[in-house]
């Protein structure tokens, strides 16, 4: 768990409500949901589980986005500025450019399936964990 340090500007009272020290009866549920049943999102945001989830998500989607955009723009720039290169005939009259374009289809499928699998194994279970810990359902 995170160490008990108050963030600046937070009063002792708020701090206790967030951390759940104000009540000794049911600290676990009080921590993340207030008396009206409204989730305390700021507290949820601070949990290790949420941070881990956010890290797992962003370390996958941003590099992948960079990857497919680079590969797509490479195809586009080659088509526009390296005409002779992409016009190289490879199979019959089918040239390198057409194959590179079809290659984009293949990488799209690979990234789609890869993300699907990653989300199922690494993201969804972590989301479930967070939901169980905080008592906030979907």
């Amino acid at each position: 768990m995170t160490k008990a340090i108050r963030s600046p500007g937070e009063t002792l009272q708020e701090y206790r409500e967030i951390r759940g020290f104000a009540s000794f009866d049911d600290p676990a549920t009080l921590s993340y949901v207030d008396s009206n049943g409204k989730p305390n999102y700021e507290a949820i945001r601070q949990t290790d589980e949420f941070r881990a989830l956010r890290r797992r998500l962003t370390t996958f989607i941003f590099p992948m986005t960079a990857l497919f955009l680079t590969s797509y723009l490479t195809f586009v720039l080659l088509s526009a500025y390296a005409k002779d290169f992409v016009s190289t005939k490879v199979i019959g009259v089918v040239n390198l450019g057409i194959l590179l374009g079809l290659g984009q289809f293949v990488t799209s499928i690979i990234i789609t399936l890869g993300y699907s699998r990653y989300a199922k194994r690494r993201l969804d279970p972590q989301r479930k964990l967070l939901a169980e810990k905080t008592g906030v359902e979907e």
Partner: protein
Amino acid sequence: MPTTGNPVLNLSVFAVFVLITLYVVYRASSRNVTASDYYAAGGSFTGAQNGVALSGDFLSAASFLGISGGIAAHGYDGFLYSVGWVVAWLVGLLLIAEGLRNTGRFTVGDVLAFRMRQRPVRAAAANATLVISFFYMIAQMAGAGGLVALLLDVTSKWGQALLIALVGMIMVAYVLIGGMKGTTWVQIIKAVLLLLCVTTMTVFLLGKFGLSLSAIMQQAAENNELGAAVLDPGAKYGFSAMSKLDFVSLALSLVLGIASLPHVLMRFYTVPNAVEARRSVVWATWTMVIFYLCTLVIGFGAMALVGTDTIAAAPGGENSAAPLLAFRIGGAVLLGIVSAVAFATILAVVAGLTLAASASFAHDVYANVIKRGDAEPRREIRVARLTAVVVGALSIIGGIAANGQNVAFLVSLALALAASANLSTILYTIFWRRFNTVGTLWSIYGGLGSCLVLILFSPVLSGSRTSIFPDVDFAWFPLGNPGIVSIPFSFLCGFVATILSKPDADKAALAAEMEVRAIAGIGVKGGTGS
């Protein structure tokens, strides 16, 4: 000229389709009571169903007629569209689908205004939605015009205009009767038919040419005035430094625009949760890959069997490549079927667009800006239906004006607008905590405004032979597609405006809520916001 088949047969195949789908829409919409039913089909579709509908939303006349026509006329340069439109779904899958599903209810405005000052941001989001949908719709209507011209052999401008108006009225009827549920079912039926149609044609073509794409392309090159050069890049874009830049700009709009289109974004709300939203994009990606592989074969097949000159001379021009090919290989019956499916495509896509535009006006502008979040749901839906009629009427007029332009190209303008106004704003608001109301307004209006201005002063509108107004010349912007300037500009606007302005007061709690909901998907049901 025996290229158009039998108008009576064409019309009857088409009429049968319209009647069947109208019946489905009517059945599906038996209980269109709440706003959630009307806008988001009560969140009742599965990921697979929605995925097919999602691809249906994008497999528009532009994709089917425009791309196969683009390849048939320009070879390699037409193929660029296919590649861009497949890769584009990754943007939706990785960056947008789940976060959007978790933070909004009906419209893009829900997400953008989540943690910002409601009224100005919702008004801005609605403005962007209306402008983008309008441009997209003009493209579809122009496609309808070309198709009608070909099918019924109507060559007079007035006759075509009348038919465009008729198509427009049928599509408004779909939206009024069916709402989101009816529209989604039409999309599903149509997407399945379209896929069957293109795969059948592709299998036939490959069979005829001994399973060799190379053989098709070889014969295609023999039937094009450029000869073998049409198989290489540059047939349409490669002649000068400026046209090469235009090619890159177009490519950028294609890949970034799709997942920013309001009617595509709105589809993510018809599924019950984020996991289903993700699943639907996976389905859509598969459908797209199959479809665009087929259009590659169909495009070159049309060039090979029909010939570029015949296509260019036909009523409807480039857009008529696929129907002409259908007639060449399957006679009047296949032409009738292909045309009916293409027509249905236009109807369904325009219905989806009309729904997105009317939802945005009724939900964002009427309910939240005018009534300040206190509108009676029944009245809100009535406003939505009324807006659908107005939007339909406007798009009919626009479609008549743009009749004859390549629809894939017109769509690329709508994509540039969508990517400029929406993409930067959505990404910032989901992933950048510091982003604020001022930044939101600047990135929406900066992107939308710069894009509109550049289109206005581009060769698309004036100053060249192929312009919409060829007789006047007020163009100073050299590119046909403004994406390469306006998309980065909107990212820059949003960033600079946010940095230079104060963070929104009292919005920290909402920002935390949005972040948790977008990333973790908890607290979505019964949460605040929207």
